[in-house]
């Protein structure tokens, strides 16, 4: 990871990862489609054009004055990569890539499912091209695997199918989770082949394992072993830190997430929490070893007034500044594509007014 003298939009974040205290809390909004729209492009370029996706994110960070850093990510990962079909966002109501056909919707299809050739299918070539821009600009190479094992599996089969299999045909669920794990490990390996592992920050978003879908007991049986294996294998590749967006209400899963490694050799992991998880609780449980990021409610960024957003951010910053390994102000999930720009400015103002460590 770039630690030279030339500052980048990710400078504060990188310093935090290397154990140096930045002068203020970094503000990394988790902002994708908004950047394309703000630059006058259709939202779809975020997912289908690596160059435009990268530069719209970079320029938006510079324009609004936040700390970056560009990221290629979509939560539907797994379907397209395993041979299903997706639809790029087109209308004003669409936020991200949507699955139109799942590749394995029956137990027989799961059995027959073959691991895709590494790097050749779905979004992976685009994500890899995106990471080349990150590396060129000496930014953190935040890349594969994009999603956690359970989310990938749900995207392959359809979440309703996977949910039923947890009870009705657990062996099918395990077969699918096994294949999803192997694919995600292989894909991260591709990043290690192309980039210096010390520069790579694998990004993992895990919405489907939230307690709005499954129980903590189901998490323990069907998520924990595979997710832990994924993280262990990633760290064994020489990668120092993992960025994990623990999406949705996962309060009841937090004790299980504590059993999963996010970093090695004294580096911190980066854990991003949804607004439904109590930020203080997240700091108490994970803050000793990890940078805590979050968790401004996206709906407020969309529907709130600049004043409301500002005060919500101040509230988060005040709590977050107590995190022992550092805190990053972030939206609790992706910043809404149609969010009013003044609300992003309000977030920047909050960090400027209250983010400094004094």
């Amino acid at each position, binding site marked *: 990871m770039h630690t030279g003298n030339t500052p980048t939009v990710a400078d504060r974040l990188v310093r935090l990862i290397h154990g140096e205290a930045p002068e203020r809390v970094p503000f990394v909004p988790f902002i994708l*489609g908004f950047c394309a729209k703000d630059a006058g492009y259709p939202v779809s370029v975020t997912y289908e054009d690596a160059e435009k996706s990268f530069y719209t994110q970079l320029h938006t960070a510079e324009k609004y004055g936040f700390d970056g850093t560009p990221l290629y990510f979509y939560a539907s990962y797994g379907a397209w990569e395993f041979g299903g079909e997706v639809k790029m*966002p087109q*209308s*004003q*109501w*669409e*936020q*991200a890539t*949507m*699955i*139109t056909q799942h590749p394995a919707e029956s137990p027989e299809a799961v059995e027959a499912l073959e691991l895709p050739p590494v790097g050749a299918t779905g979004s992976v070539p685009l994500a890899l091209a995106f990471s080349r821009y990150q590396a060129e600009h000496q930014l953190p190479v935040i890349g594969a695997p994009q999603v956690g094992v359970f989310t990938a599996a749900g995207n392959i089969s359809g*979440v*309703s199918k996977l*949910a*039923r299999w*947890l*009870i*009705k045909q657990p062996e099918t669920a395990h077969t699918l989770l096994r294949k999803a794990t192997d694919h995600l490990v292989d894909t991260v390996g591709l990043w290690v082949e192309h980039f210096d592992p010390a520069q790579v920050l694998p990004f993992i978003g895990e919405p489907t394992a939230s*307690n*709005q*879908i*499954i*129980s903590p007991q*189901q998490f323990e049986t069907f998520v924990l072993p595979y997710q832990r294996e994924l993280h262990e294998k990633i760290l064994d590749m020489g990668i120092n830190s993992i960025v994990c967006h623990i999406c*949705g209400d996962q309060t*009841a899963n937090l004790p299980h997430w504590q059993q999963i490694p996010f970093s090695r050799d004294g580096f911190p992991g980066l854990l991003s929490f949804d607004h439904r998880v109590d930020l203080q609780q997240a700091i108490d449980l994970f803050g000793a070893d990890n940078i805590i990021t979050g968790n401004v409610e*996206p*709906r407020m*960024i*969309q*529907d709130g007034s600049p004043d409301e957003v500002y005060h919500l951010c101040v509230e988060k910053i005040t709590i977050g500044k107590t995190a022992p390994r550092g805190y990053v102000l972030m939206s609790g*999930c*992706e910043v*809404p*594509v*149609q*969010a009013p720009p003044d609300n992003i400015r309000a977030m920047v103002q909050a960090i400027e007014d209250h983010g400094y460590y004094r």
Partner: protein
Amino acid sequence: MSALQERQELLHHIRDAVVDYDEEVTVELCSNAIQVGLDAYDVVANGLALGMEEVGQLYEQKEYFVPEVLMCSDAFYAGLQHLKPHIRSDAATGSGQVIIGTVEGDVHDIGKNLVKLMLEAAGFVVHDLGKDVPLDKFVQEQQRTGADIIALSALMTTSMLAIPVVIEKMRAVNPNVKILIGGAPVSQESVDLYGADGYAETAARAVDEARRLLDLPYQE
């Protein structure tokens, strides 16, 4: 055992079979109920539906999660499918009609399907438009069916913005139709902001909210 006791015992077992998400036993018991001469609508209302009501409570209490509720819904619908041909045409529920769908731009439908299930189990007639539904279609379907409630679901903060557009379109044609909204990014505050009539955080609460909107008894 008296006929009354036999009825109560059978309905109780049907309710338990739904809660235990035992599809096979649910169908078998529904078949038995018809064979012994129970009224099919009675079996739906006081067997299957009460089972789903209990499932809703277990979901609220975080005893059941989506996998369990989906399995229960399979048992419920299997039983309902078996009973439907035996339901008398005059056995109307009178609970009201609901049009439901996930708005345009959004393909997430698990929550919407759970709300549909709970509403059907509670006796509402539900017209399911599916997911990624063009906004005008909600209005057209309301005009066609005369439904009392439109239930709108969105999981994304971007598709959520389609909700007030549907509401505006609906109000322009028929201001008396009640609008119920839900989905992960939606909240009680959204009701005022978007001009809706009701919000339900969970599928089970959607039934109470629908009853409230139509001034129906809270619980039968």
